[in-house]
């Protein structure tokens, strides 16, 4: 089996991790200034990661839900699994928990193989499923107590633990109300507490911010960050809402059609995906022809076009860091600049661009 070969050879493993981490992109090696640092980081990965997947594959009939996934998550890190609905995020999570058997490949979570030792894995992994549900007739505390008992936590330890957790997620006041009276956000926070009941070394959160209001999202994200920071647990979270999780994730993997198309820190991802080109949005006062001529005269500008929705805006594509020169040139020509924004560096836009570029089912990419 392939997994055995990987285990036997540490060097090969690091190399595989290397290849996996770059998402197999050919331009990965085109950045010599980053490579040494990245490599040493990855070698640590291979030995210290608490979640490790190599060639993890899940096939449902003809559909390849997850295609040779390689993944490394270290303790104290928040790792984001990003991708549209149906990209295979939940399937991956279920395989890591031993709730679904991989068709091929190997995973190791908290030192155990989820396929062979699912109980050992489940003992150490706190899991909050997508669209988490609770027993509506029971109170929040009763629901958590049930989880604690299923984990075999000694009765003497349970109550103090539950109090602390309920306090932490801000549900102490409503802990003795039936869960059916909870709002969606409250349930989500109860889900987080539920995942923490067993004092896990790995926390897996499936879509933790879906369907809650912005204030609730901020609270949940705060909590997630504190789980990794204060408990030193590895957090793996999946989401399709990139702008929500980009503030908490240390690293992300972009997942499309069952495959990782990009992986790395947020900044690296932005560079990787943005390339050398940059888009800007310019709002200028003046005759359109003059503005266009001015913009085109700037060295490095490749493309200028009117915004189709707002005629006062211009879209400029060109080399990096044109902003100061744009502003300078325009004001030198007596054209007032009232708006200047870099677009395309926001990860959400990158993410959208990725989907446009490599939508599900497109096999030529990566």
């Amino acid at each position, binding site marked *: 089996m392939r997994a055995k070969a990987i285990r036997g050879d540490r060097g090969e493993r690091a190399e595989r991790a290397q290849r996996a981490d770059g998402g197999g992109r050919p331009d990965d090696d085109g950045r010599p200034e980053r490579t040494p640092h990245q490599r040493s980081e990855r070698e640590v990965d291979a030995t210290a990661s608490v979640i490790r997947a190599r060639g993890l594959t899940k096939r449902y009939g003809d559909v390849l839900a997850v295609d040779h996934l390689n993944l490394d998550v270290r303790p104290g890190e928040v790792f984001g699994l990003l991708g549209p609905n149906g990209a295979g995020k*939940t399937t991956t999570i*279920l395989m890591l*928990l031993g*709730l*679904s058997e991989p068709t091929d490949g190997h995973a190791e979570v908290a030192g155990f193989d989820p396929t062979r030792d699912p*109980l*050992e894995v*489940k*003992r150490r*992994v706190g*899991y*909050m*499923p997508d*669209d*988490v*549900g*609770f*027993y*509506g*007739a029971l109170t929040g505390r009763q629901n958590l107590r*049930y*989880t*604690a*008992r*299923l*984990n*075999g*936590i*000694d009765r*003497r*330890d*349970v109550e*103090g*633990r539950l109090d*602390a957790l309920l*306090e*932490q997620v*801000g549900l102490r006041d409503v802990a003795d109300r039936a869960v059916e009276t909870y709002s969606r956000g409250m349930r989500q926070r109860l*889900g987080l507490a*539920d995942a923490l009941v*067993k*004092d896990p070394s790995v926390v897996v959160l499936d879509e933790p911010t879906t369907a809650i209001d912005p204030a609730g999202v*901020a*609270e949940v994200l*705060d*909590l997630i960050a*504190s789980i990794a920071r*204060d408990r030193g647990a590895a957090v793996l979270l999946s989401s399709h809402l990139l702008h929500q999780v980009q503030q908490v994730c240390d690293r992300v993997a972009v997942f499309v059609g069952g495959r990782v198309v990009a992986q790395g820190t947020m900044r690296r991802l932005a560079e990787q995906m943005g390339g050398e080109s940059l888009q800007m949005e310019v709002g200028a006062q003046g005759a359109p022809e003059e503005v266009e001529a001015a913009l085109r005269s700037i060295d490095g500008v490749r493309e200028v076009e009117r915004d189709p929705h707002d005629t006062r805006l211009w879209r400029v594509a060109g080399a990096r860091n044109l902003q100061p020169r744009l502003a300078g040139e325009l004001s030198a020509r007596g054209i007032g600049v009232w708006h200047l924004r870099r677009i395309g560096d926001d990860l959400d836009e990158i993410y959208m661009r990725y989907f446009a570029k490599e939508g599900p089912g497109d096999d030529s990419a990566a």
Partner: protein
Amino acid sequence: MTAQPETLPARRNERSEPSHGPATPRRRSPGGGWRVIADKEFGDHILSVRLFILIAVLGLAAVAAVYSTTAYVRDNAQQAAGSTGLFVLLFSASSPSSQIPPFTTLVALLGPLLGIAFGFDAINGERSERTLPRLVAQPIHRDDVINGKFAAGLAAIALVLVAIVVLVSGFAFYQLGIVPGPDDIARVAAWVVATVIYVGFWLAFAMLCSVVMRRAATSALAAIAVWLVVTLFASLLTGIVADALSPVPADATLDQQVANAQLNLDLSRISPGELYSEATAYLLDPTTQSVGIILPSQQPAAPSILPFEQSLLLAWPQGVALIALTVVCFGAAYVVFMRQEVRA
């Protein structure tokens, strides 16, 4: 949520104090997962509306049946004086003039409902509440879920049945002043056990439905449909099959007729209802010596009263067959559940 960072260190300090135990919580040895589930499920059953509805329905039926029987028993008390079966008669007899069937018939009819009520939403209920992924992500075996739920359902069923039998006994004591003897108590207790097994079969069947069908309503409907078919049409079906396999021509010999009847009986014993009613006949009627085909030549000269041990021995095969049917349903539910994806 800005208060978070302050609360966290405090919590950690608490945990490091000896009064709060070690940093990692103490854990029981694994293997008791089903008991935790059974505990919780039984608690749910006890407080559920359905338990009260079932106790009310079965209790009313029981009181009505026994009330009509008491009059009959009182009239016949003179003949029956001295025999041990008077108390047991309350459960199994009914007055010929009354429209109300005896208590045992009512239980045979309504018992399956009890099993279906506690099982039809066992697994798909967890699915629709979306608690199943969370439940199976805990360190328990997947069969613990089914085992625990079955144990809890069986306990709830036993509770309902014992409550009703005690109610009926109390009623008999109050109305007739009958004090059951040890033989009576043993017979009724054995009958309650047989009933729990019988209802347990329907519980296992309903749980199988709840595993196979994703919606609780569909599963309840399917279970009830099978229950009705088995109760109402089983004898018709077995008759048709028996006639096809072992035809009885117009000039049939005695052997042919016996063969046909025997086949019919054997086929009907696939039905749990038939098995249960045979077991009931043995256990509650001390004069029953056989539920099979008895030719006039084989009939004993005078009906003799069997001791309880002998009746129990006669009912044993039926009990074993009922348990086997239950195990088959249970095993099927188990296999299907193990193969299912957690995600709906």
